[in-house]
């Protein structure tokens, strides 16, 4: 166990925000979900007792008849904002006094460092480059992430859970977003920062980052593994496999979307366009972890890892 290496990675000035996120993100996930489960208990109570549902104020916060439903912005909100500004300023001051912003040698195009790292918030995309070609990892995926985030309000036809924390009423939405944000985005930033060492080689936490390490990876294309060698053959075979993946995952998602009576109710509210949009984005998003597993899983069993599935003269997937 190389504790020094762990310490070095965690305290590199530009890694401090990521080390902070290691605590902040789980904390706020817990903080939000705790309120969601609290609300869920209230929802269960109200559903079991229609009489109570008519009279209850329907919030997890205490409320007594006669209390004002609204409070004055001044001072009740603005004092909090002021306090928040003061606290953030203090944190920023202390952080800036104790820790210097990194500055390396002057830029030198003739001296390539062994770890050319993207800024930490883009390290997740850099990690994606291991599994996909740059046009997918660096251009297509970021574009799809941005568009995918923007279509969320238009494809989520579930009218419940508008303005309060809940898990029970929005299971698929919450799990889907948490998977995308916590696992694929924040998780990949963590992997790219703390696991990937020099040469973008995988070092488990505690392993020494060896600048001379070499890994001879045996990566094969799927068509080669099954013995297809001709160019048109690879094109057709790869296209079929990718198409099959879309159909199979789409079917699984379809089953998930109609798993209970409640989910079928939401499903019936979807227009065809909304349904297809959900499927397209969800299947593509799941493609990332699938491709990661295809790379890592065979290696664990001593088999050649899979590099490309669809090989064509113009692009590879």
């Amino acid at each position: 166990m190389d504790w020094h290496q762990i310490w070095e990675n965690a305290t590199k000035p530009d890694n401090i925000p990521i080390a902070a996120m290691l605590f902040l993100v789980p904390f706020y996930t817990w903080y939000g979900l705790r309120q969601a489960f609290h609300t869920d208990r209230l929802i269960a109570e109200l559903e079991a007792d229609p009489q109570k549902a008519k009279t209850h104020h329907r919030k997890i916060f205490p409320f007594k008849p006669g209390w004002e439903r609204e409070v004055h912005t001044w001072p009740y909100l603005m004092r909090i904002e002021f306090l928040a500004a003061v606290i953030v300023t203090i944190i920023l001051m202390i952080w800036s006094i104790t820790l210097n912003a990194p500055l390396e040698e002057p830029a030198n195009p003739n001296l390539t460092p062994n770890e050319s790292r993207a800024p930490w918030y883009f390290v997740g995309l850099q990690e994606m480059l291991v599994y996909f070609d740059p046009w997918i990892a660096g251009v297509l995926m970021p574009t799809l992430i941005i568009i995918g985030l923007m279509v969320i309000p238009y494809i989520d036809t579930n009218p419940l859970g508008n303005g309060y924390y809940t898990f029970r009423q929005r299971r698929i939405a919450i799990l889907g977003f948490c998977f995308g944000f916590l696992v694929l985005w924040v998780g990949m930033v963590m992997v790219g920062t703390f696991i990937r060492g020099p040469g973008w080689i995988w070092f488990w936490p505690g392993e020494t980052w060896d600048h001379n390490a070499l890994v001879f990876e045996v990566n094969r294309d799927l068509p080669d593994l099954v013995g297809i060698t001709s160019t048109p053959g690879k094109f057709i075979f790869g296209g079929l496999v990718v198409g099959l993946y879309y159909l199979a995952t789409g079917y699984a998602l379809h089953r998930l979307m109609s798993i209970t009576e409640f989910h079928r109710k939401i499903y019936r509210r979807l227009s065809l366009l909304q349904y297809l949009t959900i499927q397209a984005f969800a299947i593509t998003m799941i493609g990332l972890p699938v491709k990661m597993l295809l790379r890592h899983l065979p290696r664990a069993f001593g088999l050649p890892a899979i590099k490309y599935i669809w090989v064509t003269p113009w692009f590879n997937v």
Partner: protein
Amino acid sequence: MPEENNQQAKKGLTALLGEAQEKAKALKEKALEEARALQEPEKTQLYRSMFRVKHDDTPRSRALGVLTNVFFHLHPAKINRDAVRYSFTWGMGGITFYLFLALTITGVLLMFYYHPTKVQAFRDILYLEHDVPFGKLLRNMHRWAAHLMIITVWLHMFRVFLTGSYKRPREFNWCIGVILMVLTLLLSFTGYLLPDDQLGFWAVTVGTNMARATPLLGHEGPFGPQLGMTPYNDVRFALLGGSIVDSNALLRAYIWHCVAIPLIASVFMGVHFWRVRKDGGISGPAPVMLESEIKEPKGPVPVVLRPSGMQ
């Protein structure tokens, strides 16, 4: 005769002195009165000209205090009593905006000491760190606030998702928020190159190399070469103002970072905050809705294209 004259003169003098004394007394009174009036500065003309309304301890003037102030009137006069709870909002949107302001102030101060040229950029950073009073603190604050802003933007988005606040009528504001998040990342990324050190240079080299692979528009992307893309005319060339990260790239990064993106982001922020108010203020904490209360959609009109009045 001269004695009489003398006496008269004396009388005149006493009268004059007395009069002067009285005037002085009156002046003193007046001065004291004015000084006493200053003990209530909110009644002075100067104060009233600035603040326009009385600030009595009444609900009305509490509301006016917010509504009639150009900086505060972003807020409504009153809000949902539970919406001030930290546990509901996490305060991340407000903190993000505060960090943007802090970054603007530190950024403007940094601009006084920085030249976006290959010869001077790196030296300016050294100068800032070693010679400018509080220069190091200034640079540190700018960098750490930028990192913090990215985290708070992400957490803000996470909270808005968890409370379902992107749902009707706030769909469009969520989209504006996504654009603002992208702009925040771009602001941070363009700033990364400016110190002109190895860290920024190679991070931007790695980052913009992605643009080579843009489908159709990059010279290494699918169908790029077929469309006549070369390193000297593709999208990466447009971003860098050249085929390598050099002086033009530095100048472009500088202008995007200090002028263009902050301006664009400010416009989107204005719309974002305005829509928060127009869409009914902060989304909650709203009373929970039960499954049994869902109304079935009417007719075969696709939900996404349905007029807003219909459920």
